[in-house]
């Protein structure tokens, strides 16, 4: 890691729901312009981690630094201003189903920044082109699109405000391998074009390898390994090996039945 201040830095982040400790002290740094992929099994708190950084969930303890400022120490107004600079692609796309595609993409411009509908429509068309969709798609309702198209529109919506940070929550889950590859390529391309810092969470190893500069593994609420994406196959870490090779046997114990 270089001497420069990381774009995002997480220290000792803890979050519990009732008696269930989901995050038990997560430490993570992401340098400006880098792409980090967090891997880990279902229910290990990957989404919770992103939601804490986004300010959608209040953590119980720990620090979150963005551009060298601890956002948890800020007033809620200031914090909201900071976290607004993060674009997010949600797992289920989370498109507003009562609005047309172009209104979804232009939502932030129209309702968050007070721009005119005309300007938003132009921007929406531009963003659609960036994710490889024709202008006509803008007039459709989200429910008229396939899962892959919805993901593309959600990506277009996330990049519409030229964010400096992008989060991707399971970007390829539920897509066929070919569509998944298209989405992976689009993500890499758009992140590069924006010069953005990216954090993605996934359990799809093909996707992780394609998107990541660095990979970190989250297990039982802590980061158990972190390294360059290229070194994932010979990490020497038994947790990572088990996960990457998809074996039921190993240090990670899955309950086969409810005890």
């Amino acid at each position, binding site marked *: 890691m270089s001497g420069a201040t990381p774009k995002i830095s997480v220290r000792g982040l803890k979050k519990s729901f009732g008696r269930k400790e989901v995050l038990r002290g997560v430490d993570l740094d992401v340098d400006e312009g880098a792409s980090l992929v967090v891997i880990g099994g279902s229910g290990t708190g990957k989404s919770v981690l992103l939601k804490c950084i986004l300010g959608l969930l209040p953590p119980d303890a720990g620090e979150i630094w963005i551009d060298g400022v601890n956002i948890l120490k800020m007033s809620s107004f200031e914090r909201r201003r900071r*976290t607004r600079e993060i674009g997010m692609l949600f797992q289920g796309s989370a*498109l507003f189903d009562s609005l047309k595609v172009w209104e979804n993409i232009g939502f932030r411009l129209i309702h968050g920044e*007070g721009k005119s509908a005309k300007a938003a429509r132009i921007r929406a068309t531009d963003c659609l082109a960036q994710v490889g969709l024709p202008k006509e798609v803008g007039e459709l309702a989200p429910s008229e699109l396939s899962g892959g198209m919805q993901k593309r529109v959600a990506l277009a919506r996330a990049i519409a405000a030229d964010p400096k940070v992008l989060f991707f929550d399971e970007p390829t889950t539920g897509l066929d391998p070919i569509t998944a590859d298209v989405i992976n390529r689009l993500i890499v391309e758009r992140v590069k074009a924006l010069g953005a810092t990216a954090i993605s969470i996934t359990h799809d190893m093909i996707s992780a390898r394609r998107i990541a500069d660095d990979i970190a593994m989250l297990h039982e609420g802590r980061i158990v390994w972190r390294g360059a994406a290229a070194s994932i196959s010979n990490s020497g870490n038994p947790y990572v090996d088990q996960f990457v090779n998809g074996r039921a046997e190993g240090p990670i114990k899955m309950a086969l039945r409810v005890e």
Partner: protein
Amino acid sequence: MNPLAAIGRLTIGLLAEIGALSVFALRGAFAWVSGPFYTREFLNAAIRIGFNSLPVVGLTAIFTGAALALNIYDGSARFNAESFLPQILSVSIVRELGPGFAALMVAGRSSSGMAAELGAMRVSDQIDAMSTLAVDPFKYLISPRILATTMMLPFIVLVADIIGILGGWFVAVFALGFEGATYIRNIDQFLTTDDVVSGLIKAGVFGFLISVMGCYYGYKSRGGAQGVGGATRSAVVASAVAILASNYVMTSLFVGV
């Protein structure tokens, strides 16, 4: 289990819920003050809640007025007071039944609708997505609904009052032998502005409660289709209880007892 501990836990849970609900209601009612105000959302909500509720509220009112006329006639005939039918009927409707029935119908229709809509948005991450797009869900989703319902319900109740009295008039004139013009004149001379206004104030409060319950349970819903179903049910039950309880409190204030 220790029964005292159970009672304590229930009480604490109830107080916490009331606290959370109050904070939510205040935030929802005033979030728009610091701008922006989403006019289109407000108008959409006003049309959906106000205008689209009119048919069902009108139907309820006309049948309530008609049945009430029969009951008042039959009851007051026992002490030869049946000529006071127009007065008793009109005051019952504008003070109590118009606001009450209209609010309960709107609760069944709109409170559940809001809870289902916001609940579906919550479980599909649309509300979180809105926050990441620099739009405060309280300003965009909650405030417009609360303001629109609170402002529309008095209008709905005014219509319900008129239709309810008309329903009574039909029965009185065509079944009970009252003279149409006299019937109206009696009401006109008897009914005071305070009678009507107190009902409309009630309506405003009911509208506020209905929308707060609908939004609160929808916004807080968790866990897929079942969670949304539960939110819808809770919203309707809570709205109905809140309407009836607040109705008693307000009535006792208006009557001064």
